[in-house]
């Protein structure tokens, strides 16, 4: 089933007087399948964050339509069922928390939905379990690491029980350890709970873990393919100001020098295997 469907969507932010508004999203059509793991990449200003905010009706398209499980985001009556099916995690964990105690913050979403008390408690328990932070229930996020805070932000979204989770550069401010923690959590959600994940990032290592990559450039979809196929484009990606992961670049360079190595290598193990095989042959 299609989770999110965009049809010929345009969106422009208000421009200063005398300036022509530039389309941040410029004629995008796209379908996201339920249960898939999609990565969205692109340089600054390519329109990827704007795209994310169109998914749950935080922004409404100037023209074209965004449908979430058959509901149009322009339909005001359905905006809250749309927002409770598409959860969104933002870049800075500090700016998403409303309460100074972990459990209170996670309860914020379900409380807004007007759920009964025991259901809220059940959801808070479950959400904390899902991100592996149950023992922090009563503590305050103020002194936690970035990775922990971001996991709590994810828990806060999970308590709404969304079917799709959109991460808008949620790993950008974290150290490598924190990024790993967050990636592990969202992979578990995707694999075990069959949750649809749309991950906006500029870390190529995270992209290669997705099933599908959308490269944004100038508000348009430039490439839409599997990570392997995208990385295999090598030098071409420079046009969009992104670069494949180091392993792929290395394989590419070796292939350029005449080595018999595939250009679409995406992981360190694969490169290791390929080089070993090459050396054994000689």
């Amino acid at each position, binding site marked *: 089933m299609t989770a999110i469907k965009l049809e010929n969507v345009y969106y422009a932010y208000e421009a200063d007087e005398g300036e022509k508004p530039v389309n941040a999203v410029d004629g995008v059509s796209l379908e996201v399948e339920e249960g898939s793991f999609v990565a969205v990449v692109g340089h600054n200003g390519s329109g990827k964050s704007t795209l994310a*905010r169109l998914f*749950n009706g*935080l922004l409404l398209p100037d023209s074209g339509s965004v449908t979430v499980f058959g509901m149009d985001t322009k339909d005001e009556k359905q905006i*809250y069922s749309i*927002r*409770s099916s598409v*959860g*969104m995690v*933002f*870049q*800075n964990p*500090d*700016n*998403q*928390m*409303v*309460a*100074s*105690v972990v*459990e*209170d*913050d996670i*309860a*914020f*979403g*379900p*409380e*807004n*939905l*007007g*759920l*009964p*008390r025991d259901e*809220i*408690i059940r959801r*808070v328990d479950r959400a904390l379990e899902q991100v592996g932070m149950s023992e922090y229930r*009563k*503590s*305050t996020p*103020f002194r936690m690491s970035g990775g922990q805070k971001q996991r709590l932000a994810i828990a*806060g*979204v999970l308590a*709404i029980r969304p079917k799709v989770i959109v991460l808008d550069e949620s790993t950008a401010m974290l150290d490598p350890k924190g990024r790993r923690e967050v990636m592990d959590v969202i992979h578990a959600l995707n694999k075990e709970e069959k949750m649809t994940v749309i991950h906006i990032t500029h870390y190529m290592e995270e992209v290669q873990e997705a099933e599908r990559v959308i490269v944004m450039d100038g508000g348009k979809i430039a490439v839409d393919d599997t990570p392997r196929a995208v990385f295999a484009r090598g030098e071409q990606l420079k046009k969009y100001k992104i670069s494949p992961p180091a392993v792929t670049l290395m394989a590419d360079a070796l292939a350029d020098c005449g080595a018999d190595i595939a250009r679409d290598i995406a992981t360190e193990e694969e490169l290791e295997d390929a080089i070993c095989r090459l050396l054994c042959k000689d």
Partner: protein
Amino acid sequence: MRDIAFGQYYPVSSPVHRLDPRLKIIFTLMYIVTMFFVASYFGYALVLCFLLTVCAVAHVPPKAMFKSIKGIIVLLIITAILNLFFYAGEASVEWTWWIFTVSPEAIDFALKMMFRLILLIMGTTILTFTTGTSELTDAIESLFKPLNLIKIPVRDIALIMSIALRFIPGLIEETDKIMMAQKARGADMESGNIFKKIKAMLPVIIPVFVSAFRKADELADALDARCYQASPKRTKMKKMSFAWRDLIAFLIFAAFVAIIFLDKYLWGGLDGYIVQAFQSLMG
């Protein structure tokens, strides 16, 4: 800057933390009023003892409470000086030097005013030390519910207040960071007279404001994304209800207030008796 403790929650479990947040807000308001009725040094000592006891019961380090004064130290000094030299009451003796006149009564008055301010701040911080921001929101919402009748959005106002409290440490951290960044680029913030110092703060204040607006923007998106106002009837995870411990806390607090009032109106300030007793003891 980082030492300003105001608005920081201490996540421990204690009888004070478990009190009904509405009661704690009422206590704090009553405490503020009571502070203006403290008449003697004995009274101030009693208030301090009371606060230290509350700290001990709440498992909050008293050091944290004392730290909260740091933020108002300039205010304290200015009020003390003004009270000292512009005391308008009757004076038994006057010591005059140039244009300054000081009397024992003025010293007494300035000291008491200073204690009053210090204890006011220390006492009110206990509320934020022991009450989470969403508990505060719920309590304010519940206490001011009648205002809903005249179309005041109590719920929104309560949320705004608790978010403001939650963001204080973050903004202080941000200010610190920006100050360091400007210092690293050669900004001089320590030397010069007061006007120069104020001017030197501009390159700090402007980025702090810009970042505050950016934070507010992202928070607004986050609130929307988490379905704020999705349902007209917002439910609560934590139920607020009075328990036995609330009654006990009320009795203890009432006794404390009673002694302060007795000291002022019945005993006329115990200081005199204490001095007398001390003198007779010394022979």
